[in-house]
């Protein structure tokens, strides 16, 4: 014993043995793990605790933010001037496109009205700042500073100035959790800009490039192709830049081509993001006709 003992000697009752306690708490955690992964019963508990922890997290962030502000305040004049010149140049080069945009939008609206098609993207968007990236090394997540109070809802798409970053998956009162494109099995419906081929891009986890699965080897796709959202899932508005194809491997003997892509957006580094407004509700999927009414071809053949 290293200190003056003030407790009774160990032969007095000390509660259940450590092993018994470990068994009890171990089983309890396993039960919790099961309950959380299977049924998601515990979302409300998480919500409540997140509210309590929010001020603490913001307070912890203050020193770093202040430091960043001070350093940026003292950033050299020349760097700012350079930046300014570059931005002017960019503005000028994009001017024709921007001026044309207004016209195009009006024209588009008229045409859509003619076609009686609902607007697929309402254009309401919330700018948000990244608070910090998730600590969990198994998932690819970000936390942003806009939440329920700013009208953010789960399922909204998140983009930066280049392309899609991810999707809002959990909303807390003052912040929201964004799951990135690179998160394992995060799916984005995409189409190839050049050929119009539709597919779904799946994230592969930290440090690995997302890939397109189940594309037959003869499909029209090549390295360097740009992938845009196809908008058929009702989550991502169509036409947003997503990724660029890095490699296409077509091996004889494989049923599917192996297509890896690189996200265009600074998925893990952009500090400012835009949370796009909810996509207008897509029409309900039509009911599958009951099998007894119209037997499918395959079944029919078996029976016949």
């Amino acid at each position, binding site marked *: 014993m290293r200190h003056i003992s003030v*407790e009774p000697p160990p032969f007095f009752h000390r509660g259940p043995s450590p092993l018994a*306690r470990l068994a009890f708490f171990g089983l309890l955690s396993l039960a919790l*793990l099961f309950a*959380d*992964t299977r049924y998601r019963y515990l979302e409300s*508990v998480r919500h409540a605790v997140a509210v309590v922890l929010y001020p603490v*997290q913001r307070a912890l962030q203050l020193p770093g933010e202040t430091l960043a502000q001070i350093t940026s305040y003292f950033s050299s004049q020349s760097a700012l001037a350079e930046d300014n010149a570059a931005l002017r140049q960019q503005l000028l080069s994009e001017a024709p496109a921007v001026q044309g945009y207004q016209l195009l939008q009006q024209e588009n609206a008229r045409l859509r009205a003619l076609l009686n098609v609902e607007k697929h993207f309402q254009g309401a968007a919330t700018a948000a700042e990244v608070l910090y990236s998730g600590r969990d090394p198994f998932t690819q997540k970000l936390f942003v500073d806009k939440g329920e109070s700013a009208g953010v809802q789960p399922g909204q798409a998140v983009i930066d100035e280049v392309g899609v970053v991810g999707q809002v998956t959990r909303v807390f009162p003052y912040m929201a959790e964004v799951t990135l494109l690179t998160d394992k099995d995060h799916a984005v419906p995409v189409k190839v800009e050049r050929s119009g081929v539709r597919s779904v891009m799946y994230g592969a986890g930290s*440090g*690995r490039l997302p890939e397109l699965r189940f594309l037959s080897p003869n499909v029209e796709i090549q390295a360097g192709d740009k992938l845009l959202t196809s908008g058929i899932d009702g989550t991502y508005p169509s036409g947003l830049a997503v990724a660029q194809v890095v490699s296409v491997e077509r091996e004889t003997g494989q049923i599917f081509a192996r297509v890896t892509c690189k996200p265009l957006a600074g998925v893990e580094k952009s500090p400012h993001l835009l949370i796009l407004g909810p996509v207008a509700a897509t029409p309900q999927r039509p009911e599958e006709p009951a099998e007894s009414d119209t037997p499918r071809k395959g079944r029919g053949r078996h029976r016949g």
Partner: protein
Amino acid sequence: MPHLPSFARPEEILLPVKPWFVMLTLILGLLGNLIPVSGVTLRLQPDFLALVLLYWCIQEPRLISVGMAWCLGLVMDVADATIFGQHALAYAVLAYAAEYFRRRVLRFPLWQQAAQVAVLLLFCAALVLLVRVVGGAPIPRWTYAVGPLVGALLWPVVTILLQWPQRPRRSQAEV
């Protein structure tokens, strides 16, 4: 080998610990884990709470043990937005391992203690890994093991800091 101060070997009788100090350090450990960082710093960031918890489980097993560790793990699960029970399980096992090995760990000088702590922290991290991989998560890169190793390197510092209030007042003793 230079003579390390009394932290290295239990030659000195320490004063009894104050429970509020234990709680305070545990809360500070939790706050340390909540510091928002990203990039390389995130990879280097050790699990401060596990480190402080391990220290108290080794030094004061009657005050802090499996139950307390489990509760703190639950708080950590919420703060991290991970699966409920993942840290709770890991911390409970860590606390039990600490209680089991504490007499052996305490016999060694601080740097050798750190080596044993590294094993305990890596074991704790491996348990989290096991839970997540069984749940379908991808296996992370090798940098996953950096955090626990940094934690082990911090062990001597943590020991010296946390033992400070318990050291006998030398001046009074000499007078």
